[in-house]
């Protein structure tokens, strides 16, 4: 049976089905079909349908180019005030047209279509288009992550009321082609917001997510971003903040700045944004933990106030002879231990102070110890067995993240072998293996209060765990692609996740729901850091861009100039919250004036909406290393910046 005749036969079959004899005869004559073919008209119902739908207007490959061109012209000719918002429509329409062309088997046309209009799309879409361009056949859509995301989800476009009515009018006029109308109805969610159309910069600041912008409704929930009331500690010296205040008085402009920063630190009791202390059950502090906390406070009182005029000193720890094997690093809170995870699946812990690492005595010997003795903790440690470096074996794949617990007794690690392991820093053995993730685990972080931790991985989920449960307490799912990084909020009530779908999401640990979705990144997010006050979230992406989000509104408050040329893998806030440091694979550490960033964001709130300014004034300094990509950053309690990188040989 000739291919050419198949549609005709299908039509004949349809006519016969509906008993339209006259038409059938005319068609037969006109098409001069033989009786033989006419006799065996028994196309299956499904095939019949597919052949007939192929004759729907959408199957005409030329109508797509025309329709897209019309839409483009409409956007170009629209008022300036609406133009930028409307232009966000182009990309999703373009993508779905491409996918439709593929679905209707017009593969050649699809390729041509992509060639013709692909380069016109925004630069940050090009990466996705490249990934999408792999799909060249109907069957391949199913296996392609990106194509599946597009076909099963709705792309969010935010339009002002004016713009959306203009769009409606335009669509109404387009009677000839239903292509665009169908795509917009089926695959695009138009969010109408009150207020004037946004400028190009404003639009650009929030677009970039795989599915467009975050909708405002999703960010309505109140987030308690304030800090918890710290339990009183006996050894507490004079409050740290007061001391700083005294120091600052001679410098007038600085004082104003400092006041704003310290708002949350100074009045933890009356902070309206703080969650109740018992919102999340937190573990009781042990006696030793209290001592540690007291130490931390004493140290903090000796802290150096940082600012644009007093930059921190940086001590750089270079890992020699590691080549590409060193993957991740962490430094414990009191800056005495350094842990490094390697691609050959082991973990090394170094001491950074003259105090050597000691193991615990064997079980038999432990029995002999008087448990009531005051120095029982010292007595139970082995005396002879000391080392400056210890190795932990157990994983069976690259270790992607190591993390010290706040009290320096435990270590968490996650690996390509899809497990999370808990290690004891006293016995130097593995205590628990947490299985739950199906695929490699990319990141794991402790809650600032210990006990809880959160992990994230290739299975597109983040999971909240407690150390005493072998199963996750919460599973945060919703990301459309890998969850690449997680971070606990300083008050332990929230978890932030960054993903390859280029969104940052904030999850409530209590309810397990998503409370914020923040767009604006144009590339995969690799690292997150909460500001000390808990209101801001800094995130670094694979293209070297750095964003600061305001948790209270969920909008990006500052897009720092993209001065890094390689993925950012390390972010750290100074302990007083005035300096943000970023470390990148381009072998530089950059220091940003965070006080100025937040001040500007606050100032803007009073005036216009979130307008973004790319100003280089935020950058304080940049320090380059000799070919040592930065893999970890850490501020000591006294505001000395420690950085870790592995030397990769002279170029």
């Amino acid at each position, binding site marked *: 049976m000739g291919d050419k005749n198949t549609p005709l036969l299908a039509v004949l079959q349809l006519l016969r089905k509906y008993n339209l004899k006259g038409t059938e005869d005319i068609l037969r004559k006109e098409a001069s079909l033989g009786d033989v073919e006419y006799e065996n008209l028994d196309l299956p119902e499904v095939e019949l349908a597919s052949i007939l739908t192929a004759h729907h207007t959408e199957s005409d490959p030329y109508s797509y180019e025309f329709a897209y061109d019309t839409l483009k012209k409409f956007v170009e000719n629209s008022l300036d005030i609406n133009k930028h918002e409307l232009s966000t429509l182009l990309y999703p329409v373009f993508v779905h047209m491409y996918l439709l062309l593929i679905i209707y088997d017009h593969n050649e046309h699809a390729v041509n279509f992509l060639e013709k209009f692909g380069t016109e799309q925004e630069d940050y879409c090009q990466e996705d288009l490249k990934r999408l361009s792999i799909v060249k056949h109907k069957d*391949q859509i199913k296996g392609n992550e990106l194509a599946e995301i597009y076909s099963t989800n709705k792309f969010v476009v935010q339009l002002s009321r004016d713009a959306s009515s203009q769009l409606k009018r335009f669509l109404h006029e387009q009677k000839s082609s239903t292509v665009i109308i169908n795509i917009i109805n089926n695959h695009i969610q138009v969010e109408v917001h009150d207020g004037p159309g946004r400028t190009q910069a404003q639009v650009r600041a929030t677009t970039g997510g795989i599915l467009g912008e975050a909708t405002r409704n999703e960010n309505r929930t109140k987030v308690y971003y304030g800090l918890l009331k710290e339990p009183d500690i006996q050894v507490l010296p004079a409050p740290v903040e007061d001391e700083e205040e005294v120091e600052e008085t001679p410098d007038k402009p600085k004082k104003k700045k400092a006041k704003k920063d310290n708002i949350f630190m100074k009045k933890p009791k009356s902070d309206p944004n703080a969650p109740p202390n018992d919102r999340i059950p937190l573990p009781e502090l042990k006696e030793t933990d209290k001592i540690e906390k007291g130490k931390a406070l004493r140290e903090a009182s000796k802290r150096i106030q940082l600012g644009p005029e007093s930059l921190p000193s940086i001590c750089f720890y270079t890992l*020699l002879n590691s080549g590409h094997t060193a993957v991740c690093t962490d430094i414990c809170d009191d800056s005495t231990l350094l842990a490094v995870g390697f691609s050959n699946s082991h973990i090394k812990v170094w001491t950074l102070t003259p105090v050597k690492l000691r193991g615990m005595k064997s079980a038999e010997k432990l029995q002999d110890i008087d448990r009531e003795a005051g120095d029982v903790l010292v007595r139970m440690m082995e005396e002879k067995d000391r080392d400056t470096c210890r190795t932990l074996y157990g994983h069976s794949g690259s270790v992607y993240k190591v993390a010290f617990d706040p009290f320096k007794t435990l270590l968490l690690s996650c690996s390509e072998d899809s497990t999370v392991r808990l290690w004891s820093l006293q016995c130097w053995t593995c205590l628990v293996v947490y299985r739950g993730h199906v695929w490699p685990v990319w990141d794991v972080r402790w809650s600032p209060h210990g006990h809880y931790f959160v992990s994230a991985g290739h299975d597109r989920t983040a999971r909240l765990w407690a150390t005493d449960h072998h199963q996750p307490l919460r599973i945060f799912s919703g990301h459309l692609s890998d969850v690449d990084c997680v971070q606990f909020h300083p008050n332990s009530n929230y978890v932030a996740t960054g993903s390859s779908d280029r969104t940052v999401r904030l999850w409530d640990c209590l309810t397990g729901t998503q409370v914020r979705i923040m767009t604006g990144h144009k590339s995969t997010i690799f690292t997150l850091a909460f500001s000390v006050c808990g209101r801001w979230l800094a995130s670094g992406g694979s293209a070297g861009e750095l964003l600061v989000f305001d948790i209270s509104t969920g909008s990006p408050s500052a897009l720092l100039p993209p001065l890094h040329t390689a*993925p950012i*893998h390390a972010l750290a806030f100074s302990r007083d919250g005035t300096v943000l440091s970023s470390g990148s694979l381009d072998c530089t550490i950059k220091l940003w004036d965070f006080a100025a960033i937040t001040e500007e964001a606050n100032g803007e709130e009073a005036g216009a909406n979130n307008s973004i300014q790319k100003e280089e004034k935020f950058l*304080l*300094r940049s*320090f380059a*290393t000799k070919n040592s*990509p930065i893999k970890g950053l850490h501020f000591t309690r006294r505001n000395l910046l420690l950085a870790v990188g592995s030397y990769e040989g002279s170029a």
Partner: protein
Amino acid sequence: MGDSEFVYGSSLSLDSMKVIAESIGIGALGDDAAKELADDVTFRLKVIVQDSMKFMHHSKRQKLSITDIDNALKIKNIECQYGFIQPDSLPFRFASGGGRELHFIEEKEVDLSEILSAPPPKIPLDVSVRAHWLSVDGVQPTVPENPPPLSKEAQKLESVDPISKLSKPTNKDAAGKPMCGKAARLKASESVHVKQLATHELSVEQQLYYKEITEACVGSDEGRRAEALQSLSCDPGLHEMLPRMCTFISEGVKVNVVQNNLALLIYLMRMVKALLDNQSLYLEKYLHELIPSVSTCIVSRQLCLRPEMDNHWALRDFAARLMAQICKTFNTSTNNLQTRVTRLFAKALQCPSQTNNESGVGPSMVTTMKESEKTPLASLYGAVQGLAELGPEVVKVFILPRVRWLGERVEGALSGLGGADRLAAGNLKHQLLKVLAPVVRQLRQPPDLSDDYKRDYGYLGPSLHQAVAKIRSSPSAGGSGGAVAVVTCTPPLVPSAPSPQQSHITHTPKTVETVASRNVVISASPAPQSPAPSTPPPQKFVIVSQQKPPQVINTQPASGAGHIMVHSSQPTLVRSQNSVVVTSGPASGAAPPQKVVVVGVQPSHHQASISAPGQVSQAPVSVVAKPVFARGSGGPQAPPELDDLSHLA
């Protein structure tokens, strides 16, 4: 088929599929099948590469590795590809034939027994942690662990194109002074943007370093000197101190030439060598200070107190080598460095016989000849050495034509009475033979006749003949050290270099007008610029002055001890040929006890040796340490006495 789709990815070609099919035993793969396969394989490969990128990123790398691919296969439940290792680069070989082109990786057969019997490879070094300060209070210290604050390229760019620095005034990346504190406030308050002055402030540490280094370099402790020179030649981040270092060297040379302090001159030249060797420095901006100093050490008439005893020849050799190194490194078409240096040396070899022939008219003729003849043998030696280091072509053009006259000078001195002169003449002769022999060997055809040589080269003919014969007979067929070394740096031969005659013609009228009296006043503050180790009195006066008849012309650049007349930066503007006034003191401007050195010479143009050492009145300076320096290699140092012997041999 992948050509047109360059932007959105390429795909495997049908041919590749067919080749792959062939390699696994499927002979004839149809075009349709190949296309179908190619599309599918491309898709799958790309998906795998996309996934493996995730692993690459999470391993914090920017280079995809085989383990990333393996991991990506693993999460797709596909077995890993075993047995691949990742060398640093994949050497794709290319082959074509039968209308087909192939790229492949050459796989060599490995003999297992060989591997098994071989000694096990060394265990790789264990990972270790090392700490250093990346920044101290916002300033990056210049320690070897940190990248050099200003890369050599940047320094080079700055000296070649100074505007580039102005165009990006706030370069926060370069770790200089941070824009904080006073500087920042200053910048904010001043709205008028003027050209930024170069900051020459040195930190306290840098000042200490400068003091330590300069003291060690000219001090008596050989061990410390070695360390100091090592530091100068290796440490990054010296560029801020470079102006001071160069001034120190140039002032030191000026003072010590007058005082004939050989040891210190040698130390200073070693400093120059160390700075030249430093990979992170670009010295072009300071050549105007360094070249006069170095050339002084090559052609100065007297460099030591006892010319008959001390080995100042080694210093001249060493400095000549430095000069050649400078020329080689910094010569560009714009600064014409090598041309100018060559001209300088050639002028020292000005041959009076030729001037007589060409321009010898008028009353000045006789005096010209006499003045030129007074060019000391030591200076001639230096000039010859300096030219020799610049390559055989230079030797051929500038030394060979003058060999007859040089021979006369040597002959005269050898037959004379002065011990020092005889020694000098011997050295000069030896050096000439050493330099000329390889060149002459190239120039002349084998039948060497002693008479021809005598006729062509005058007094030196017979000796040259012997030397050439010796080289020809020796199997290695190379000249001795210097000549061979410079073959590689054959100069882009000085097209604008005037021939001696022309230069003289143009030169003569000019110098007639120049100042008649030569006087040198060098004043330098005693410490630390004055490296003379034994100058106990706070003030010392040595006065040098030379009275000459006004018609005295054509002074040799190197005829006077204090006459340093190389101004490399300004070829046309030769500062008053006959007098150099140098003052140096601390930048603060305060008036410290100054030392003025003035050397006086009797006004007599017919006196044979106008500035013989005996007539220079000056305080004796004792040489503290034996001058020891490494020749070129910087390795273990041979005492100059040995060099001396080799010269005389």
